[in-house]
């Protein structure tokens, strides 16, 4: 068990390194491939009245002339021991964990990320509670009443759910529920839970519902398929033959078996969502990690984008790791494999 955990941990760390290297390469290699020079990169960090000498100086100070792998190494080192950035007016300290330093706002990226995380976390947790509850129950009912009107309606509804882009449902939701009816908060409002839980929930209600609509559709389909698969298995028949009550058979055996693959997918989905519910946050103007990334792209603030991407990858990897470890606890066969 211990060796298994260590092996998974090691794999996760390697994965993170690869993801970060690839991300880094995109930002520092791709622009070069298409004709950017260290100077053009540096012009982003100096004002409108910069002379070529200033640009050159800044490019040197920021190490844009170094090979990419040297720059990457420096960046990784910053995460562990912090880094110093010299942008001209003095040396700026970016304490560990230094996820980069924005030259547009002149702030280390890490505190920003910590600041945005609660918003995305609130969004992800609330929505996942909704979609798990709604998706699983719909899936179970559909599986048990297979072929019924209810089943067909639920499956039709969920197929529609997965086919609707979230930015469309979000916009329609805002138009109808917020603007026309005034039931939900308009876009752009967010109050931290610690300040006012009521306002917090009010502002997030529509984003939760919209996210949950999409995900519960997927989960209903998955649950239904999983239940149907297991209900045909021998041990279910055995359980029935033993005279167990129908409800116990369905819930204890059927649903539990169907839950395992759902757990995997949930881990992945939740991790991805934490890494930035980009579209939802964009539609509702929620100041979370996803909007942070989009805003950073628009202002060409690459260190921020790099920071978010790595953080997002971190959540996906961690979520996978947790799912793996849970499996190992639940199902001893996994440890050997």
């Amino acid at each position, binding site marked *: 068990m211990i060796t298994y955990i260590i092996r998974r941990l090691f794999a996760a760390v390697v994965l993170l390194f690869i993801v970060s290297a690839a991300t880094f390469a995109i930002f520092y290699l791709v622009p070069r491939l298409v004709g950017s020079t260290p100077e*053009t990169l540096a*012009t*982003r960090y*100096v*004002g*409108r*009245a*910069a*002379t*070529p000498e*200033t640009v050159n100086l*800044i490019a040197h100070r920021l190490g844009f002339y170094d090979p990419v792998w040297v720059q990457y190494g420096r960046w990784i080192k910053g995460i562990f021991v912090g880094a110093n950035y010299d*942008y*001209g*007016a*003095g040396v*700026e300290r970016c304490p560990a964990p230094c996820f980069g330093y924005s030259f547009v*706002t*002149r*702030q280390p990226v890490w505190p*920003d990320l910590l*600041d945005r995380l609660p918003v995305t976390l609130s969004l992800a947790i609330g929505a996942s509670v909704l979609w798990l509850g709604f998706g699983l129950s719909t899936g179970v009912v559909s599986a048990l009443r297979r072929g019924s009107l209810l089943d067909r309606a639920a499956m039709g509804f969920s197929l529609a759910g997965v086919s609707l882009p979230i930015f469309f449902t979000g916009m329609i939701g805002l138009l109808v529920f917020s603007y026309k009816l005034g039931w939900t908060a*308009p*876009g*752009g*409002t967010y109050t931290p839970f610690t300040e006012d839980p009521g306002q917090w929930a009010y502002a997030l209600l529509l984003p939760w519902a919209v996210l949950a609509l999409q995900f519960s559709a997927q989960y209903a389909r998955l649950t239904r398929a999983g239940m149907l698969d297991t209900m045909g298995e021998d041990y279910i028949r055995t359980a029935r033959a033993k005279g167990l009550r129908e409800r116990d058979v369905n819930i204890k055996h059927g649903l539990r078996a169907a839950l395992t693959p759902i757990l995997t997918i949930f881990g992945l989905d939740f991790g991805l969502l934490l890494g930035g519910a980009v579209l939802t946050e964009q539609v509702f*103007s929620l*100041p979370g990690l996803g909007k942070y990334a989009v805003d950073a792209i*628009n*202002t*060409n603030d690459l260190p921020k984008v790099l920071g978010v991407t790595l953080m997002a990858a971190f959540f996906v990897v961690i979520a996978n790791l947790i799912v793996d470890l849970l499996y190992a606890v639940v199902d001893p066969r996994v440890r050997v494999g």
Partner: protein
Amino acid sequence: MIRKSKVLVAGTAALALLLSAAACGGNDDTDGSTSTSKAEFNAAMTKVFNPSDKKGGTIKLANSGDWDTVDPGETYYGYSWNFLRLYGRGLLMFKPTPGAEGNKVTPDLAEGLGVPSDGGKTWTYKLRKGVKFEDGTEVKAADVKYAVLRSIDKETFPNGPAYFEGFLNLPANYKGPYKSKGVNTDSAITTPDDSTIVFHLKSAFGGFDYLAALPQTVPVPEAKDTGAKYKEHVVSSGPYMFDQNNLGKNFSLKRNPNWDQATDPNRKALPDGYEVSLNVNADDIDNRLLSGDLDLDVVGTGVQPAALGRVVGDPALKAQTDNPVLARLWYTSINPTVAPLDNIECRKAVEFAADKTGYQTAYGGPLAGGDIATTILPPMIPGYEKFDLYPAGADNTGDVDKAKAALAACGQPNGFETNMGYRAERPKEKATAESLQQSLARVGIKLTLKPFPQGDYFSQYAGNPPYVKANKLGLVTNGWGADWNDGFGFLSQIVDSRVIRETGGSSNTSVRIPQVDQMLDAAVAETDTAKRDAQWGPIDKRVMEEAVILPGVYAKSLMIRPKRLSNVFVSEAYSMYDYLSLGVA
């Protein structure tokens, strides 16, 4: 239009009248001349809306983006200059008065306007006594000198205005007090005593008082200066000081106990504090303004398209708005370095073929966008002359016949192909480019649209002459607002060919007329305001004759008037509500 007359008495009188009207309960509608309480369209344009002397309360503001910076040495946005007067006192300031008077500078930290000597090469200011920083120490001339010098360091403050380093007689290679520590700067600024500051210029500049009104003259105590980090705690010299300051999120101001009303004739300091939220969704700001939950959109550029329909369509809501004209021109540069636009007839074809109504609609129509422009100078700039060299037909949608004639004269009777650049992040510029693509196609001029990132627009693309030439950027969208409302403040950066840098970065991309450069030099050297102002119109006309600028609209903004506040009026200097006089009604 001679607004900048030297008759200061008139201004003082108007101010006195305003104060008395307010003090004696000028809520009377019939009074009419200086104040009003009747909520109607444009009620706060030239009058004080809802006058009151009531103190207390907190004013709530929101910004749909981040504040560029609250550091007086670097901030370069009109709204920020307007707001900064709450926590900082520069030598001079724009008068907090409605109407044309608001365009005049008035002494703030200084006792009087600048006293020129040596033919306009030396300017002396006397400081008021008893003005204190928030920590109780007295403001000295050296603090102002230090503030100006630190703002010169463009590595620390890359985005700040660059007028002082342009005009002051600084030592060669001077890079500001951080890098050129201990360098003697007496050739540029001297402080003979604690309450006198003298500026020494390289050449005569009649309009130096405008520079003395820049926030860069707001005193900064050297001991408390932390360079680029100073924006985290700016030391106040005004009636309010920073309470909380969460960069990128929000900040608040509270009363500065060391500010003394006796030293300050301009400020009333009515509310107890200000709360500013940053990065708030723009549509949400409009909704909250309309419901009264929020007082001001601090940026002051007006409502979003979604709210426009609501506001204009509802008479009750429209009565709650003001529609000022801004000292800002949205235009398109026609680059003569790109063939066949090197031929003036081809440039004229563009001028004639452009659909001006379409241009206006792209910016938001006559209310939210602005008025159709035919000149470079907006009408509110002193010296503006009205003329239209390229009439766009009866309905302002372009004169196709004249455009075709010009094309024929250019030797391109079937039109030609060229590229048009715009800032990708700006929907209005995108709409403009699409509109021009449509209207020019009528005469066979085919435009390929090229979106560029806003951050590098001038440094690498539209303002980079070799790039423009190599990539055949015949047209590029552009916009310019004056740093202050005067011909020099408006024209110098966009029509002087000497500001064009081969390495990029200039807002002027297309105007290279030696005669215009000479005309500008002659105007700058003129110390008589009226004579100087009379020279801007001809410069405008000369540039238009070359057809290198296609004027689009003189910008206007439709602003939602705060419901809850008193003393609301539009400042002509900033073309938005004056933030200094507001109170909570």
